[in-house]
Every structure is written in structure tokens, then in C-alpha cells.
């Protein structure tokens, strides 16, 4: 894989997919707007727990620093009853105080402004929640910025979840020998995991920078890719990438059967973080690799 594209992909969550500007139309208020050009969205039938297929849309997020409110605009919001709201703008979400590093703004009830729709035709939403966090890491001598955005809102017995189509996280990667599972784990905080989901294909890619699947890989700085992985979602709004069968990872844009991967289980909670575990048969042994990576990893936050 071409590292130049990888690096761009890593930064894409903050730059290519999002553009921001300061809007000072109202001279009394300072407002910033972020535009998310590629967002994932799916719904959950709260009565049955059935989830819809992933689809793609776009959204924008507004922060009014003067009024201390946030707003979310979702484009082409398709409701379960078949209605599509072309541009639903939720305003006046109030930030909740917390010391987790996340900015969480909520509204118990909210009726969005929808262009071209009379107010009477716009449903009321409940439990509107917008979570956002910015985080950074160093890669190839550059600082990369991650911007995680997650929205959940409920109407008509369905909860709708929206997030970026890519996310990356870092944390403690633990590598244990499968021959000696009770032995001490090799730990490293160097790896960065980037998830990208293609909703139209229902496939995901996991890219691991400075991958460590065995202790001997710690100093090699290899960039490894898991491609074409099946994707599913759960009623809690999480995205799952699971493949129990053995597959070949990609290295330098070519599959590498030399260290097959199996029993992959990855959970991406857009409002929390990424958790991944898999087995790898590397040279010199079989290893279990796991990493639990909250998006606020490394931030000086409270519990």
C-alpha cells in the first residue's frame, strides 16, 4: 500500500472529509461549522432490535461559542416510514459537562428545521445526542488529527445513528503468544488503527500503521492492511467488523500469505472508541493481538 495515500486516509477524517469555517453572519455570535461530506448512517427498530443496512449521507455540525450551543444538520435523512428529510437542522443542543475529553450535546426533544417542509410535517425527535472529540497522534514525523463525530436521535420508534465513514484510534496493543497464553503480554503504544467503511459495498478496511503482530515486528514500522471485511451494526449503534476465517493481510499493496490473520473481531463505537482482537501466525510463532483504544486515549481526563 502506498504510504502517501495511507497518511492522507488517516488525515481524511479531519481534513478531506471535513471542512470548517468560522461563520460570523451574526456579528454578535462566533460560530464554527464543520462539514462532513461522507457519513455513515443506519437505523434500529427499537421494538425488534432490527438494524437497517448502512448507507451514506452528509452532515454538518455547528458550534456557537457565544451562545454555547451546538447544532447538527443531516442531509437526506431517510426515515423508517419512507419520508426523506432533505436537510434536517437540529439546533440549540446543550453541551453536558463531563471530564472525559468528549463534547456531548443533547436535547431531550427537538424538532428540526427542514427546508421545504412545513413544520407540521416534520416529526419530533427525542434523545438527540451529538458527541465529538478531536485527538492527535504522530506518524512519519507528522502530527495527524482525528475528528470523531457521532449522532444519535430517535423518532417513530426508530433510533438513527450517524458517524464519520472513517475513524482511527491508538492505545495499548497487547501481543500474547498462543503457545503460552498465560505468559506476559508484549505491549506497545506505537500502532495506529484506521477503520474505513464503504457503505455501498458493506465492506470495511482496517489499516494498521506500525503494526505489531509479534514482538519482533516492534521496530520494523510495517503498515499492514486488512481488506474487504464484512461489516454489520448492532442496536447500540456500534459497527462490527468480524471475520473468523483465515485471510491474508495486505502489505505494500500485495497480499501476504506469510502471516495469515484469523478470528478477527473489531468493534467500533463512534461515541467511544475502537476495540480489536485477532490471531496472527507470524514467523516464529502464533500470536493473539488485542487493542482496546478509546478515542480519548492519552488525554488527561477523569473517569
Amino acid at each position, binding site marked *: 500500500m502506498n504510504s502517501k495515500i495511507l497518511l492522507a486516509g488517516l488525515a481524511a477524517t479531519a481534513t478531506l472529509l471535513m471542512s470548517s469555517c468560522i461563520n460570523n453572519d451574526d456579528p454578535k455570535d462566533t460560530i464554527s461549522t464543520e462539514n462532513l461530506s461522507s457519513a455513515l448512517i443506519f437505523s434500529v427498530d427499537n421494538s425488534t432490535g432490527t438494524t437497517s443496512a448502512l448507507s451514506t449521507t452528509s452532515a454538518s455540525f455547528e458550534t456557537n461559542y457565544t451562545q454555547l450551543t451546538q447544532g447538527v444538520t443531516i442531509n437526506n435523512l431517510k426515515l423508517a416510514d419512507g419520508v426523506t428529510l432533505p436537510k434536517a437542522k437540529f439546533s440549540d443542543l446543550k453541551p453536558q459537562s463531563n471530564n472525559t475529553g468528549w463534547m456531548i450535546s443533547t436535547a431531550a426533544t427537538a424538532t428540526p428545521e427542514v427546508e421545504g417542509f412545513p413544520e407540521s410535517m416534520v416529526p419530533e425527535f427525542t434523545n438527540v445526542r451529538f458527541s465529538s472529540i478531536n485527538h492527535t497522534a504522530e506518524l512519519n514525523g507528522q502530527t495527524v488529527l482525528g475528528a470523531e463525530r457521532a449522532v444519535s436521535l430517535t423518532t417513530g420508534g426508530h433510533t438513527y445513528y450517524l458517524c464519520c465513514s472513517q475513524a482511527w484510534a491508538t492505545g495499548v496493543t497487547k501481543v500474547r503468544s498462543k503457545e503460552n497464553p498465560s505468559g506476559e503480554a508484549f505491549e506497545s503504544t506505537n500502532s495506529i488503527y484506521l477503520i474505513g467503511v464503504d457503505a455501498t459495498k458493506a465492506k470495511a478496511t482496517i489499516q494498521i500503521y506500525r503494526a505489531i503482530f509479534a514482538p519482533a515486528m516492534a521496530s520494523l514500522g510495517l503498515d499492514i492492511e486488512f481488506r474487504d471485511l464484512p461489516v454489520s451494526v448492532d442496536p447500540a449503534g456500534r459497527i462490527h467488523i468480524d471475520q473468523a476465517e483465515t485471510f491474508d493481510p495486505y*502489505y505494500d499493496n500485495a497480499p501476504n500469505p506469510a502471516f495469515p490473520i484469523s478470528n478477527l473481531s473489531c468493534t467500533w463505537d463512534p461515541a467511544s472508541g475502537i476495540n480489536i482482537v485477532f490471531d496472527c501466525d507470524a514467523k516464529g510463532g502464533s500470536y493473539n493481538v488485542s487493542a482496546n483504544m478509546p478515542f480519548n486515549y492519552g488525554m488527561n481526563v477523569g473517569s
Partner: protein
Amino acid sequence: MNRYILIFISVWLCVPVLAASAADTTRHRTLRAVEVMGVKQDAGVQASMSTVTQAGAGELRRLGVSSTKGLSEIAPNFFVPDYGSRMTSSIYVRGLGSRMDQPVVGLSVDGVPYLNKDSYDFDIDNIERMEVWRGAQSVLNGRNAMAGQINVYTRSPWSGPAVSAVAGYGRGNTARLGLTARKRLSETAATSLSAFMRRSDGFYTNEATGAKIDFEKQGSLRWKTSWRPHGHVSLVNTAAFSMLRQGGYPYQETATGTIARNDTCFYRRTTWSDGLTLSWAGRRIVATSLTSVQYLDDNMTLDQDFTTADLFTLTQRRREWGFTQDLFTRGTRGSYSWLGGVFGFYRPSRMDAPVDFKDQGIAQLIEDHRNEANPFYPIEWFTRRFTLGSDFRTANGGFALYHESRWTHGRWTIEGALRYDFEHASLDWHSQCTTGYRTMHVLPDGSREVYRENPIEINERGHMAQSFGELLPKLAVSYSLGSIGNIFANAAKGYKAGGYNLQMFSDVLQQKLMRLMGFGMAYDPDEVVSYKPETSWSYELGTHLSGARWTASATVFYIDTRDRQLTTFPAGTTTGRIMTNAARARSMGVELTGSWHPSESFVATASYGYTDATFLKYESAGISYRGKRLPYAPQHTLFVSAEWTVPFSIAGTEISAGADVRGAGPIYWDDANEVRQNFYATMGAHITVARDERWSLRLWGENITDTRYATFYFVSVGRAFLQQGRPWQAGVTLRLAFN
């Protein structure tokens, strides 16, 4: 080693020794008019408060010294190994030295400071005097005189015969020719023009081609003019030009014991300089202006793997200018004397340094490693040769203010000095590479099909800059013992400038290439190539003694070096080295010198240096080297010489015969102290027939015991190499002088 030390100690005990003086130690003591203009370091008073080795023209001629390398071991703890080419002027003093950009020893010729250590190694004819000042000399000489200062003074056009010539021939088809013409243009002006050439076939053979590998051809011109238009005003201008072409780099692979490579190695250099010294001398004050311009144009091309394999080659082409201006005044008022001045310099440079990867280099260094990790999808490079290109523009400039004051009260002399040195360094770099590879897929039947094409295009530019300022104090005190000598002590801060190690850029580009292939750690170029200044505190305690027929000096020293500049591997990695100021070291030792001339016909000199230099703090790739000895610098240096002169009854001639022994070691070649060269000694001898200064014929021999020793050792691409010291040499030198 013990045997050599025992011999030396026996000689030292039997021969009362004194400090080597600036006086001509040959039998014929001809007083010469020495041009002292532009001299900041006083060979008399200041030398009594420092440690300095001075050699006059006669002694230099007697020992066959015509370059700074020739004083190696003669000055104790002063070691200049002869390896590589004339570009590799690595000078070690008291354990301190540098193989990289900035030297630890300054060099000036007739007051003109040489800004680039790559031009330090050259032959000069007509040397009047050479001095090796040891200890921190940064107060008067500024940047890069952290461990010492070498001053070379050429003969004044006012003195000497109208025409002098030298011709010599020796083993290795080594020939030298020199011609100097002096002319008094008027009562107030004199000029001299010197031409010098030297050629040699060399001594080492490239087994792959059968040709000598260390051939050399060099030539130089020096035009010196002195004008005294007024009783108080004098000017001296020295213009110099030199050209050099040599093979060099006779590195022998230790596994095979042979020198064999298939690509060319050479070093070509052209330099010219002009230095103008203008002095105005009043009753109590002398004001001096020293202006110089220097130009260096060189090309170093190396078979970088030094084997017959087609791995990779390096070329480094450079053009550099240097401008210096030094304005200083010195004066005396009763028991108080002082010197103060301002110095500025500017040094712009352009360098082009491509690295060519060749067939086997691509295979062994890139393809094999990559394909071992994924043999099912191996890669094949587009072409069997590609270039990692780098070009650079650097500019260094700075200024300094300095002052030195000295008081004498009774037997006591106290000296205090301070220098503020400011420097700004900038680098504009451009890296480019157009290449690529294809990923193949190995099919079940063993055949291959193209899986993917991977073009690589690198074209990046960057700019870096940094500034640093240093305050450099010095304090010295001397107590006179009357006519017999003195005791002195001094403490001084030394300074080696920061900058950019351009040779590290090949690492940056290689890491970039690896990154584009999906592995390795890419580092910020600034982090990889830049380094901050290195500083030291130097302390000395010593004595200079002399009698009617002997001189002796002894010095003990301690040097604390901080922020030592070196290359390391960051913790946890074994690839991707970076420049850093990562180490602290200390060096301590003793130096003894002496001479004895019991009669007009015999003179003996000796010097011994001991240095214990170790790392106090240094870590690379997670390994600590604390307590390990600093590599490349010898622990002991030894020099002993004796000469007898016998008058001959025919036409006023005399015959002199002399012998000398030089020794150095042990020398460690690596930070871990796992490989070393033991102490070794070489012997020289000569017989000279001379008549006054009209003519002399000298038969000489160097390393007549044909001692085998290594002058350099390194590891490259998993192979160990060393360079052997030169084998025995012998020759004849004829000197003629006409008035």
C-alpha cells in the same frame, strides 16, 4: 605497549627534558626575520600559560614535515591518522576529535583561518613555523577550536635566499619538486613566489583491477607580498592556489585481507585563497586587520560498498566560498597588556550528492529483504539502477567579540579572556528520486505474473535554520620560577559549532523510500541531520622549565565535554540513525615533552601523551556506552628523536644523522570498545650532507621497520574494513639555495 613505554621512560629519565621551543634546534642557527603580523597567540608570554608544541623550519625539515599530519605524535596527544583521502582530516587532540562536519581543532595559515576541515590536509613548502596549541582555544580562535589550534606560518619574502629549490624522489614513484623565488622590490616591498608539486603512484593495489589505488597528484602556488609603505604601517598579502587529484580510500576488507572494488573512488580538489593582513603599529598599540576570501571546489566519488559488488556509489560535488574579517588591537601599558577584537565570517556552499543504487544493491538491500517478508508476491525493480538525488545550499555566518587582558605583578601573571560568538546556519535541501517497482504474483506452476505496478516519485524541498550564541571565558595564571621556567594553570570553555550533517540526508531519503514501500520509520529531516553546538570545559596545570641545554614541560589536563555531537539510533530501533547531541564525555591525562642538546652536535627530543577519554553518558538503540573509551583517539602517543651532526673536512660541509620513533595506541574503533588497534611504533632515519644553507642532500627512510598497523576501521553493509598504515618508504631529497 609496555616495552615501548619502558623505552620511553628510560630515555626520559636519562635525558633532562624541557618544553620544546620555537627555536631552530638544528646546529646551524640562522636568525631569520620572522613576520609576526597578524599573530594573536603570542609564542612567548602566552605560550608560557598554555600547552603548545612549536616546531621551526629546521626541525620540520629534519623530520620531513610538510603538512599538519607530519606533527602527529610529535605534539603529545595530537593524532592525525592518515586514511581515506585528503578530505578526511580527522584530527584528535586529548581524546577529542570529529569525523563529521565540524572539527575540534582550528587551522590558520599566516593568520587566515580555514573554515572547512575538508581542506585542512595539504602540503606546504617553505614553512617557517608550526604550532599546535592544545586545550580550548576558542576565546581567540572562535568556533571549532574546542580542543586546540594549529597555526602555520610561511617564510617571509624578506628573508631567505633569492631562489631555493627542492627535489625529492622516493619509493612508490613518489616525486616532489618545489621552487621559490624571492625578490626585494624596494626598500619597503618584497615578494616571493613558490610553486610546489608532488606525485605518487601509491602503495596499495586494487586486486580487482591490478592498479594502484592511492595515487596522488597535487600542485600549488603561493604568492606572498610584504609592503611597508610607512614606518607604522605594513601589509602582507598571501594568495594561494592548489589542485589535487588522488585515488585514495584503500580500504581492505578484513575477511579477505584484500583491497578490491569495481567502481571508481577518487577525490579531486581545487582551492584558492587570498589573505590580506594590514597592521598599524603605534608606540603602545598595534591594530591589525585580517581579511580573507577562500574558495573550495571538490568532488568525492566513492564505491560506497568498497567491494567488487555492484551495490551503490556516492558522489559529493561541492563549491564553497568563505569570507572572514578579523579586526583586533593589542597593547601594553606597564604591567598590563590586552588584546581585543571583532571577527565575522560568511560561508555559503552548494553541494550535489547523489547516491546510485546498482543491480546488486537493489537486490540485496531492497528486493531480498522485502521478498523474504512476502515470497508469494515478490517485487522486481523497474530498472537495475536508480539514483537518490540530493542537492543542498547551506549558508553559515556569524560574528564574535573577544577580549583578553593580562596583568603581571611580581612573579605572578594573570590572564582573563572572554568571547561572545554568534552563528546562524541555514540549509535548503532538495531530494528527488524517480523509480519504481512491480509486485509480481507467483503462480502455482512457479511462473510469475505482474500483480501491480508501483511507481515512486519523490520530489521534496525544505528549509531549516538555527542560530546559536556562546559565551566563552578563559582564566589563566602563571607563577615565574625565574630563569628556569614557570608553573601555570588555566581553565577555558571550548565550543564546536552546530549545523547540519548533509551526509545523513541519504538516510532520510532511504527511509522515505522505505516508507513509501510500507515499512520503516520516517523521521523529520530536521531531527535526523541537525545538531546543536558542543561545548567543553578544559582545565590544565603544568610547568615549563629550561636550562642552558635542555627544556622540559609537563601538563596534566581534564576536559568535560557536553552535548557531544554524534549519530545514534533512537531507542528501540536499529535502523534510521539520527544526528543528536546525546553524549557527555570526559578526558584526562598527562603530557610530557623535552629536548636536550648537550653540545652543538647533538640534540634529542621526546614527547609522551597519555589520555583517558571515556563516555560519561551515551545511549544508542537502548544500549548504554557509559564508561567506554572514546573511539578513534589513541590512549598513548610517543615521539623520540635524536640527531648527531659531524663537521666534514671537505668544503665546510657537515654530515648529520638522525633517527626517530613515533608511536600511538591503543585505539578503539567502535563505541562498544570491541575492536581495537594495539599500540604500535614506527621508526624513521635520515642522513644529511649539507653545506650551510646552500645545498643539502638527505637520504631518508620512514617506517623502516615496516610496522603493520591499522589507521582506520569501520563496518559497512555488514562487512568490516580497515586501512593499513603506509609501508616502509625511503628516498632522497636535494635542496639548493641561491642568493
